[in-house]
């Protein structure tokens, strides 16, 4: 993934495949009296696809928000690449290699697909304001180097045709894909996907699943994913953590989780109802 430019953070620095990349220990998060997350611990290993599932309101999205620094848990520690992390701002998490897509598409509607993805390269672009004013020399060169990287991602996700289209005009499925492209442009070490397939038809789901697997395999990106489509989750993920009412009720490989009685009771329903 880093063929052209040095990314903002070196992917994989210090953590090899299979080791723990991020671990969450005894994290609790409350909004006033409402407990969103209670004493949750789990880990994400480098190179895996980790699913977080649970019924609505179980605290999945809150969990992602904690991981990328948007919420600050009252208790517990988050360890990122072996170092306990302090309270941090979302843009700091971004600069450390955590990228994210959103449940409801959060693209920059007024900008073209290309500009949206180029914004994702912003952290890696260093030329200062004066060069930007001239848009010439080093600034232009930098712009074009990053344009090459962005074009690779555009090719990878097969969105060449909509390059210059303002994203507000695109259909929902493509918007989701552009959002993935924007996250990929950051060359993240950990990619958080919040319901990447919500509201898609079968064909779009198949495409998206394929892209997620490709990202994981070709780029070695670690992926944490929230999804409600159980078929997709069980097929894609290496390990699954199940939340219910802000607590962790199961954690393990998909087959184990599927058989776990708590999970069945809480979420999947009893077998004959499926």
């Amino acid at each position, binding site marked *: 993934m880093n063929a052209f430019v040095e990314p*903002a953070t070196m992917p994989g620095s210090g953590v090899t495949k299979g080791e723990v990349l991020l671990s969450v220990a005894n994290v609790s998060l409350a909004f006033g009296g409402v407990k969103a997350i209670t004493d949750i611990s789990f880990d994400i290993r480098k190179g895996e696809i980790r699913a977080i599932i649970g019924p609505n309101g179980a605290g999945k999205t809150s969990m992602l928000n904690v991981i*990328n620094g*948007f919420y600050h848990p009252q208790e517990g520690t988050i360890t990122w690449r072996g170092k306990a992390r302090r309270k941090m*701002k*979302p*843009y700091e*998490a*971004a*600069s450390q290699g955590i*990228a*994210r897509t*959103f449940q409801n598409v*959060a*693209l*920059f*509607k*007024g*900008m073209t697909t290309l*500009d949206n993805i*180029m*914004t*994702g390269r*912003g*952290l890696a*672009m260093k*030329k200062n*304001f004066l060069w*930007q*004013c*001239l*848009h010439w020399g080093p*600034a*232009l060169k930098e*712009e*074009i180097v990053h*344009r*090459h990287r962005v*074009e690779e991602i555009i090719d990878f996700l097969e969105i060449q045709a909509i390059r210059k289209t303002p994203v507000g005009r695109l259909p929902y499925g493509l918007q989701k894909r552009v959002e993935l492209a*924007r*996250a990929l442009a*950051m060359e993240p070490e950990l990619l958080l996907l919040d319901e990447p397939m919500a509201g898609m038809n079968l064909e779009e789901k198949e495409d998206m699943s394929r892209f997620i697997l490709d990202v994981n395999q070709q780029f070695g990106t670690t992926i944490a994913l929230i999804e409600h489509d159980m078929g997709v989750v069980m097929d894609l993920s290496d390990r699954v953590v199940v939340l219910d009412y802000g607590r962790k009720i199961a954690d393990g490989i998909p087959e184990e989780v599927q058989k776990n009685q708590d999970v069945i009771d809480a979420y999947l329903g009893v077998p004959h109802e499926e």
Partner: protein
Amino acid sequence: MLYREAGQFKTTYDADQAIFPIAQDRWAVIAFAAIAFLVVPFFVNDYWTNAVLLPLLIYGLAALGLNILVGYCGQISLGTGGFMAVGAFASYKLMTSFPELNIAIVVLLSGGATALVGVMFGLPSLRIKGFYLAVATLAAQFFLVWLFNKVGWFYNYSATGQISVPERSIFGLVVTGPTAAPWVKYLFCLSFLALFGLIAKNVVRGRIGRNWMAIRDMDIAAELIGVRPLQTKLSAFAFSSFYVGMAGSLLFTIYLGAIEVTEVFGINVSFLVLFMVIIGGLGSILGSFLGATFLVLMPIFLKNFMVDGLGLLPVLAKHVEILLMGLLIMGFLIVEPHGLARMWQILKEKFRLWPFPY
């Protein structure tokens, strides 16, 4: 038929990212600039410069600055009049304190001073958004005008509270004061507008411009992909105020020559520039110019038409003009809420297909 891009192949990303990727556009703009710089100066007289061209260029610059803040970064500001006053008074203090200083440098430094003030009033933008921010910047408008009216140091304790520009020249040509030739004033302002128009375009199509637009469109997502909200918003305030300050400086030094702050930089100027931006098109460099053109030229056109063409009394014509301007603004915004720039874009798209319907 004429406006076709068939046969123009772009083989590099550089060519693809040019400001005018289509050759016809490029040539049209070069021709326009050549006429503005090389032909118009020979024909301008006092009336044309003072009534039409100078306000057009100066308000164009102010609208451009405000468009960067409102249109590109999504931070609404009603303090434009106040910031223009900062530019004007900074020029006055610089010119009276350092008589040796070149006028072009005075204008640039005035912009710089305004940028600092703009950043100060931009600080609340991290916490408050939308209408609430508008009210906060409105405070800037009233505070700054009050300050320049109240504190004698700013107008060198003159009895009237008025400031008037000393004579300055550039390249041996007098450019400020009553003896300046119209074409010199025109070219001076035009050079500033052209240069800083180009710079603005460069900034908004690069990393910084994209960060501004990201904050405008979805600030939470922008933050999660690594855009620092405070830095980005303040840079937009600084950049925008720099332009607005230069416009204020030019308005005082070149155009009016002598001003009284409460008359020239009142709240109505803030609204005028904001209307230019909205009518011209938010988030469009061209739109800023179109909006300024519309709001500067339309009243003149209406007045001439009604007084000379229809023989109305000038006082009546003035009232009807205000009425008609209001109606025109509403009409335009109903027809195309995205402003004149979008209309122009649609026209171009139509023209590309012409004479075929599809």
